[in-house]
C-alpha cells in the first residue's frame, strides 16, 4: 500500500516541477519589462534599474530560474505589484473562502448527483431515467454565469431570502450562511450532471458483475442488492470523477466568485490578471495547479485503496 503512495508521490514531482516552470515562464513573457510595471509610469530610469537589480532581472535566465525555485521552496512568492502585500498573505486570505465555497457546492450536489444517477440506473430505460439523463445533460450545458445571474434575480431580489454581495462571515454564522447559500448552490448545479451520469453508468457496470448476480439469485431485495453491492462498488469511479471535477469546479468558481463578489482565489486571479498584477496572478495559478495535483494524488491513493483490481 505504502508502495502505491510513494510511487504516486514520485510521479507527481515532475508534474510539480512543470507547473513551477510554467509559472516562471509566465513571468518571462509578460508584456513589457516587469521592472517597469513595478516601478510605475512616473519612475525615472535609475529607479527602474534599481528595481530590476532588486528583482534579479539583470541576471541570466537560468540564474533567475534557480533563484525562483529557491524562493518557492521557502514559500516566498514575492509581493503584489499593486497592493504590495506579500503574495502568500493574499493567497492565504483568499484560500479559506474558496474552500468554503467549493465544499459548500460539493456537499449537496455530490449526494444529489449520486442519488439521481443510482435512480436512473435502477430504473434504466424508464421515463424517470430519461428525465434524469435529460436534466443532467441540460445541467452541463448551462453557462454558470447564467445560473448565477438567475439565482441572484430569483432568490436574492424577487424573493430576497439570501444575500449576494461578498462573504459576510464564516459559514457557521447566520449571515455567513445566508451569503454562502447562493454562490454554493449555483456552483453545485454544474456538478450534478457529471456526477449523475458517471454514477449511472458505473452502477450499470457493477450490476452486471458476478457477485451482484449471485446476491440477486440469493433472493435479496433489489434495493438491498443495489445499496449493499452495487452502489459501494460503483462509487469508486465517482470518487475519481469528483477529484477530476475539482479543476472544473475551480474554473466555475472563477465566474461564481466574480458575480457574487466572493473574496476567494478565483476573484483574486481574475482581478490580478486583469490588472496585470503578475506576481499575484502567478501565485494563484500555481496554487490552483497545486490544489488540483494534490486532490488527484489523494484520489489516486483512495482509488487504489478501494479498488482491489488496482491493488494487484
Amino acid at each position, binding site marked *: 500500500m505504502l508502495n502505491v503512495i510513494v510511487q504516486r508521490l514520485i510521479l507527481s514531482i*515532475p508534474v510539480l516541477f512543470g507547473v513551477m516552470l510554467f509559472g516562471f515562464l509566465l513571468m518571462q513573457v509578460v508584456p513589457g519589462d516587469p521592472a517597469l510595471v513595478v516601478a510605475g509610469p512616473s519612475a525615472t530610469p535609475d529607479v527602474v534599474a534599481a528595481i530590476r537589480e532588486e528583482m534579479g532581472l539583470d541576471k541570466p535566465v537560468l540564474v533567475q530560474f534557480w533563484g525562483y525555485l529557491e524562493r518557492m521552496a521557502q514559500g516566498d512568492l514575492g509581493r503584489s505589484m499593486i497592493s504590495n502585500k506579500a503574495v502568500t498573505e493574499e493567497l492565504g486570505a483568499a484560500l479559506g473562502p474558496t474552500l468554503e465555497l467549493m465544499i459548500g457546492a460539493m456537499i449537496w450536489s455530490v449526494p444529489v448527483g449520486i442519488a439521481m444517477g443510482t435512480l436512473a440506473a435502477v430504473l434504466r430505460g424508464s421515463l424517470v431515467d430519461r428525465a434524469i439523463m435529460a436534466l443532467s445533460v441540460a445541467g452541463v450545458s448551462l*453557462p454558470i*454565469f*447564467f445560473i448565477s445571474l438567475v439565482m441572484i434575480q430569483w432568490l436574492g431580489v424577487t424573493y430576497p431570502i439570501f444575500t449576494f454581495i461578498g462573504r459576510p462571515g464564516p459559514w457557521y454564522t447566520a449571515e455567513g450562511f445566508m451569503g454562502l447559500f447562493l454562490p454554493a448552490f449555483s456552483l453545485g448545479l454544474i456538478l450534478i450532471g457529471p456526477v449523475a451520469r*458517471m454514477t449511472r453508468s458505473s452502477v450499470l457496470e457493477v450490476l452486471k458483475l458476478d457477485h451482484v448476480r449471485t446476491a440477486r439469485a440469493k433472493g435479496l431485495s433489489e434495493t438491498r442488492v443495489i445499496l449493499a453491492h452495487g452502489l459501494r462498488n460503483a462509487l469508486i469511479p465517482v470518487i475519481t470523477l469528483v477529484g477530476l471535477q475539482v479543476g472544473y469546479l475551480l474554473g466555475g468558481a*472563477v465566474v461564481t466568485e466574480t458575480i457574487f463578489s466572493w473574496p476567494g482565489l478565483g476573484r483574486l486571479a481574475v482581478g490580478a490578471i*486583469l490588472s496585470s498584477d503578475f506576481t499575484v496572478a502567478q501565485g494563484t495559478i500555481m496554487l490552483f495547479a497545486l490544489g*488540483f*495535483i494534490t486532490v488527484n494524488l489523494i484520489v489516486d491513493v483512495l482509488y487504489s485503496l478501494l479498488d482491489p*483490481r488496482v491493488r494487484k
Partner: protein
Amino acid sequence: MTMTSANAASAAPATEDADQVTAPARAHWFRRLLRDRAAALALLTLTVIILGAVFAPWLATHDPASNSRSIMTPPVWSAMGEAEHWLGTDGQGRDIYSRLLYGARLTLLIGFLAVGLGGFIGSLIGLMSAFNEKLDPIVMRTMDVLLSFPAILLGLALVAVMGQGVVPVVIALSVSSIPDCARVARGIAIGVMKQEFIEAGRAVGLSNLQLFQRYLVRNAISSIMIFISLRFGQTILIGATLSFLGLGAKPPAAELGMMASQGREFLLFAPHIAVIPSVVIFVIVLSANVAGDALRDVLDPRLQA
C-alpha cells in the same frame, strides 16, 4: 458530456479504451443516429444555427454594430415590442437578432478552431506517444502539467500576456483540449498497436513513418475524430465564459458570451438582453452534447447497455 467522460477515461483504467470503435458498429451509424429522436432534433438545431451563422450577412436585418435611439426594446412578441427589431434591442439600441447571428458566427468559429487545433495537436501527441515508448512517459507527464490548469485560468493568463482578443482565447481553449485529446488518442492508438497488421507491416520492412501514417493514423483516426467532436459543446461553453469575464472579442464585434455579459447591467429592466444570448449558448451546447452522446452510443456498443 464530453469533459467528464474524457476525464473519467483518462483516470479510470476500466473505461480507458471505451472510445474504441469496432468496425461493424460503424455501419449505418448515421441512420441509427437519426432514429434517436433527441439526437435528430439536436443535429437539426445545430445545422440551423450553423447555417444562420454562415449566412449572417444575408440574414441580418441590421448592421450588428450600428446603434439606434430605441434602446432596450423588448422582443416583438412582447406587448412593447417593435416590428423593426424581432428580438428587440440592447442597451445601445443595437438589433439583438442581427447581433445574435454574428455572435453565433464568432462563438462557433472560436469553438471550431479551438477544438480543431487542440484536437489535432493533442491527437498527434497521443499517437506519437503510443508509437514511441521512450517518448511516452515524458509526454504524458507534460500532459499532466497542462491538465493542472483549468481552461478558464489558462485563458486569463494568456490574455494577460497577449492582450484581449479572439486569438488568445482560441489558443487557451486549444491548449486546454490538448491533454484530454492526447490521453484518449494514446489509449486508442495503444489498442491499434497491439493488432497484428502492425507486426505484419514491420515484418514487411515498412519504415516507422510509413507504419505511423498508413496503419496507426488510418486505423485510429475515426475514433479520435468522434472523441474530438464530443469536446465541442464544452469548448463553446468555456469560450463563452471567457468572453463573459471580459476577455475575447473586442467591441463592437458581437460574441454570444460578451452579449450576455453586457446584458447583465440591464437584467432588472430588460432581462431579454442577457437572457437571449445565454439561451442561444445553452441551446448550442445542449445540442452538441446530445448529438455527441448519441453518436457515442451508436458507435460504441459497450456503452449502449
